């Protein structure tokens, strides 16, 4: 049998004013009608260009120079635009990443789906709209008839991704191409989308190509893997044999980089070492009942952080974990005084910094520092990197210019960069290198506490691991306390002593990282941890899953914030806000239905003193 899609020797170049850059270098692959293939590669490896080239959607400066694309035996290259249009969105479905961008903001989603249906099979609008409602129901959107009237901006990211999927399967394609289906989605939503993707492809009996950077996604949802690097497919293998033993050295590196957390040696090391003294150490940072509300149009309020209290001791790494909208970043910004809290206190070494005037807090800047999420966005594009690192020294310490230069060179070396890097500008560096500069800047003044706001989420997988290793190394050596804000649970497990989990601005569970990951007790923690897809096709996922969407933080649900999605919900949950209680030694959580410590749970490491005075 011939393959459904056959790409052979496809080469693409980018024609600039100055020079022509090769983007794809004779890429070939085949896919059968009922197969699921994963296309993995880091950003810049040419995955998205490959998709566009297959569909004949490459815009002007890119050009196909050689090769062929055959779909169902037909050559797509050189086919007329009209004929291509019949195939695209018909037999060949496409779902792109960044769903909101790819929906038309001025048409209701029902109308958009109806348009796609009609363009391939002319029919009255009513009929097409009815079909659109069916499709929305098929992709699991509650109240499909109502939502069909909604405009894209009225839907959440997860909902938009479902709509994109509905568009892609509208005409029962024989092959579905999906680009980064979980990009920008939270983990608990991601797994819902991926499960939906798999079941709809199974129902249609069609083929599926998932393009992704995430090896976890590929491991769980694909049968075959192709690895792309610098415009070439360098390895192709069935999923199981690939994850068991990748052939290419690059694939091995990629796999190692994202496998990390399950490796016993790594996690074990991180969690326990040197903890005895730290437990007795004085707290560096103490949050007491922190609340942050933002005014929203119409006089309503968005509660981003809702009564959060926890402590970080000297030299301790604490993770703040949660999905988007959980308020974790807001907590970090309040600590750095980039935002002013609405209620509550923040004690830094025993002093309440919420009471300090700006002028006095500036003297403390050298003690608390921050590393930001996007390294490109957090560096002044017109400042040399050396100057950026020296800036906190210049403004908050009395170091002389010569001492500063010496310190900058020292720091650059410490974070694994050459001293020459100090003379470069941000755009001359890669994201990973730039994040190292960001780290150097944060530790320049030997602070007591560094807040990391998702420091690895904008980086590629292989770089991510290096940065995490660096952070762990620095923490050991310098004994700086970390507040590590992240939704990347594998990173947290590798780096942090304790973990606090936030949901809708509320602290739902906090405890020793390893114990918490081994046996999460709060229903939200359990769902969150079981949504992590490790790059291991044999991982058994717990069936414990949340349903539905994260409610809006503007109208917080009464009682427990999770009650709208919780599988363990009981009547009192809807009215009584659960207090944060110590249910086992060293573990506090906010749930009415989890019994206090009994003989059931695994032994957790003892914690001699309660965490909050």
């Amino acid at each position, binding site marked *: 049998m011939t393959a459904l899609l056959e790409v052979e020797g496809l080469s693409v170049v980018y024609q600039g004013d100055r020079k022509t850059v090769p983007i794809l270098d004779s890429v070939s692959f085949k896919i059968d009608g009922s197969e699921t293939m994963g296309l993995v590669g880091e950003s810049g490896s040419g995955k998205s260009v490959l998709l566009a080239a297959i569909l004949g959607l490459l815009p002007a400066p890119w050009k196909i120079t050689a090769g062929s694309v055959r779909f169902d035996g037909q050559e797509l290259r050189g086919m007329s635009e009209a004929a291509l249009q019949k195939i695209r969105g018909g037999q060949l479905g496409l779902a792109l990443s960044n769903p909101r961008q790819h929906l038309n903001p001025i048409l209701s989603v029902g109308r958009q789906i109806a348009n796609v249906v009609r363009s391939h099979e002319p029919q009255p609008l009513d009929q097409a709209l009815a079909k659109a409602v069916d499709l929305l129901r098929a992709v699991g959107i509650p109240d499909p008839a109502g939502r069909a009237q909604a405009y894209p901006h009225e839907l959440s990211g997860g909902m938009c991704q479902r709509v994109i999927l509905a568009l892609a399967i509208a005409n029962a394609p024989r092959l579905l191409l999906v680009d980064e289906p979980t990009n920008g989605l939270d983990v608990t939503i991601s797994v819902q989308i991926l499960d939906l993707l798999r079941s709809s492809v199974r129902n249609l009996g069609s083929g599926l190509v998932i393009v992704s950077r995430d090896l976890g996604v590929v491991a769980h949802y694909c049968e075959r893997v192709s690895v792309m690097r610098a415009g070439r497919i360098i390895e192709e293998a069935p999923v199981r044999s690939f994850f068991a033993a990748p052939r290419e050295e690059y694939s091995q590196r990629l796999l190692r980089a994202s496998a990390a957390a399950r490796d016993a040696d790594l996690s074990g090391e991180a969690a326990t070492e040197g903890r005895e003294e730290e437990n007795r150490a004085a707290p560096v940072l103490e949050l007491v009942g922190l609340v942050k509300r933002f005014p929203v149009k119409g006089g309503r309020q968005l509660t981003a952080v809702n009564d959060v209290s926890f402590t970080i001791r000297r030299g301790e790494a604490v993770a703040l974990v949660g999905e988007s909208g959980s308020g974790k970043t807001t907590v970090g910004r309040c600590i750095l005084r980039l935002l002013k809290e609405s209620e509550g206190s923040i004690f830094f070494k025993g002093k309440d910094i919420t009471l300090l005037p700006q002028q006095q807090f500036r003297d403390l800047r050298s003690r608390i*520092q921050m590393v930001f*999420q996007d390294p490109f966005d*957090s560096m*002044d594009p017109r400042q040399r990197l050396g100057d950026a690192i020296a*800036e906190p020294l210049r*403004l*908050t310490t009395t170091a002389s210019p010569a001492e500063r230069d010496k310190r900058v060179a020292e720091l650059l070396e410490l974070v694994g960069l050459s001293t020459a890097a100090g003379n470069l500008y941000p755009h001359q560096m890669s994201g990973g290198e730039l994040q190292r500069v960001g780290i150097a800047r944060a530790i320049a003044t030997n602070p007591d506490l560094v807040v990391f706001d998702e420091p690895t989420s904008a980086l590629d997988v292989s770089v991510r691991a290096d940065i995490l290793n660096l952070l762990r190394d620095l923490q050991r050596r310098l004994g700086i306390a970390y507040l590590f804000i992240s939704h990347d649970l594998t990173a947290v497990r590798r780096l942090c002593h304790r973990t606090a989990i936030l949901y809708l601005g509320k602290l739902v569970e906090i405890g020793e990282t390893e114990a918490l990951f081994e046996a999460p007790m709060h229903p939200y923690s359990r769902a969150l941890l079981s949504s992590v897809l490790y790059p291991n096709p044999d991982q058994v996922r717990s069936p414990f899953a949340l349903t539905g969407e994260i409610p809006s933080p503007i109208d917080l649900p009464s009682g427990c914030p999770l009650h709208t999605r919780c599988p363990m919900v009981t009547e009192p949950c809807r009215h009584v806000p659960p207090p944060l209680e110590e249910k086992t030694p060293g573990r506090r959580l906010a749930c009415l239905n989890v019994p206090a410590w009994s003989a059931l749970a695994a032994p957790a490491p003892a914690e001699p003193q309660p965490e909050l005075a």
Partner: protein
Amino acid sequence: MLRQFLDGDLWRFARARPGMLFGFVVVVANLVLALFGPLVAPYPTEAPAGASLLPPSGQHWFGTDVSGIDVLSRMIASPRIDLTIALVSTAIAFTAGVGLGVISGFFAQGERTGRIFSAAIMRTADIVQAFPMFVFALALVGLSGPSMTNVIVALAFLNIPFFLRITRGTVLQVRSRTFVEAALCAGNTELRAAFAHVMPNAIAPALVHFSTTIGFSILLTAGLSFVGAGVPPPTPELGLMIQVGAQNMITGHWWTALFPGLMLAISVLAFSLFGDHLRVFLDPTNRR
């Protein structure tokens, strides 16, 4: 140095765009004339060199005006006045406009006092702009008498709101990027962060507007002279020449106003074209 320039990106870019090349040549010519014009003019620029209203000839290429002054000589000398007024007034407007723009943009979403201050700046700009530009300049010059300084002040005042708005817009965008927060964490005061980190990243559009504004300032200077509110005669200034010449045009002496008029039109066009293309050049997303 010339070789370096010819190899440079700007020259490469200009070469492929005739509009920019034209603008570039005229702008440079204007600058050269402003520096050396009065020295190379063949006849005196403020004293008669022959009979009144001589038509263009081999001796007086563009003829002489009603007082017998050589038109070409006055045109050659004119950039020194026109360009000085335009440059100085635009520079003042640029400095004040960008400074205010940075402040009003940076504090637009901050603490309460900052917000009020920012809003006050913008409302003042609204009021200034609510007057028709020309009437406003006329009133200002009319109040304190015609002189070069007054023309400069009037033009500077008029142009501040434009620079202010342009800069404020970009500052609002740049303000939301995280490197501003990073700068605050590094120990910068808000004001320092605004001028040391935000301004350099938000100044490009104002710089481009600079060139366009010079062109229009030349036009406005001439306009003010034309209605009698500009520099006093017999200063060699294009607007003045057009005004005096316009009266002779009716009697058939077309050369006294036409040639200065053409020069004015070409200069304004050139500065605008140059500025427009410069914007494209400076914006890397417009290039490949």
